[in-house]
């Protein structure tokens, strides 16, 4: 089945220790998104790629970076995680930005010690 896969499902890191979260998709969608979702809150968009074009949200901290080496993969890098970065990180894809129906992965729950 075509799907959005996130690895790992659970990630524990130490305060200030860089961490990378991974997302892959078999849908061949042009757009890939990263969201941060904290407990009992709605997902918050961090950034998205339309093909190779990177689009950062204005209020996304510089601590968060992303890479998309090819259509299938997208990475979220947190350079120096703080306690406030503990959250669920969701990856999503859509065929294009017009239809914008998004398909979500299961998420990676990040714990910062």
């Amino acid at each position, binding site marked *: 089945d075509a799907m959005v896969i996130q690895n790992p499902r659970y990630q524990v890191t130490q305060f200030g220790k860089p961490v990378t979260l991974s997302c892959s998709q078999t849908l061949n969608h042009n757009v890939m998104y990263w969201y941060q979702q904290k407990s009992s809150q*709605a*997902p918050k*968009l961090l950034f998205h790629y339309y093909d190779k074009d990177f689009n950062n949200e204005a209020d996304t901290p510089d601590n968060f970076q992303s890479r998309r080496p090819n259509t299938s993969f997208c990475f979220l890098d947190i350079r120096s995680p703080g306690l406030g970065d503990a959250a669920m990180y969701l990856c999503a894809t859509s065929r294009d930005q017009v239809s*914008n129906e998004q398909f979500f992965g299961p*998420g990676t729950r990040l714990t910062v010690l």
Partner: protein
Amino acid sequence: AQSVSQHNHHVILSEAASLELGCNYSYGGTVNLFWYVQYPGQHLQLLLKYFSGDPLVKGIKGFEAEFIKSKFSFNLRKPSVQWSDTAEYFCAAPGKLIFGQGTTLQVKP
């Protein structure tokens, strides 16, 4: 700027009760709206969507929503809920998938 708001943050119902969750949008132009559901421990999935045409939209698992332009609303409904409907429900607007605050639905068996 686009915005979406949900009125009910936490709803508790008994099985077989009817459900209506409110969603209001505040933007003009072409209006497209979604309802997503997040079951406990699972990923977000699309319940239904409105792009144009019939304002009464039917989705998966017996859910439906009605787009009422005059009220800027897109409320989610289900005539008879089940325990398995316990989940978080999000109304969302496209563009950058702007989510409402979410509604936690708890259905008591």
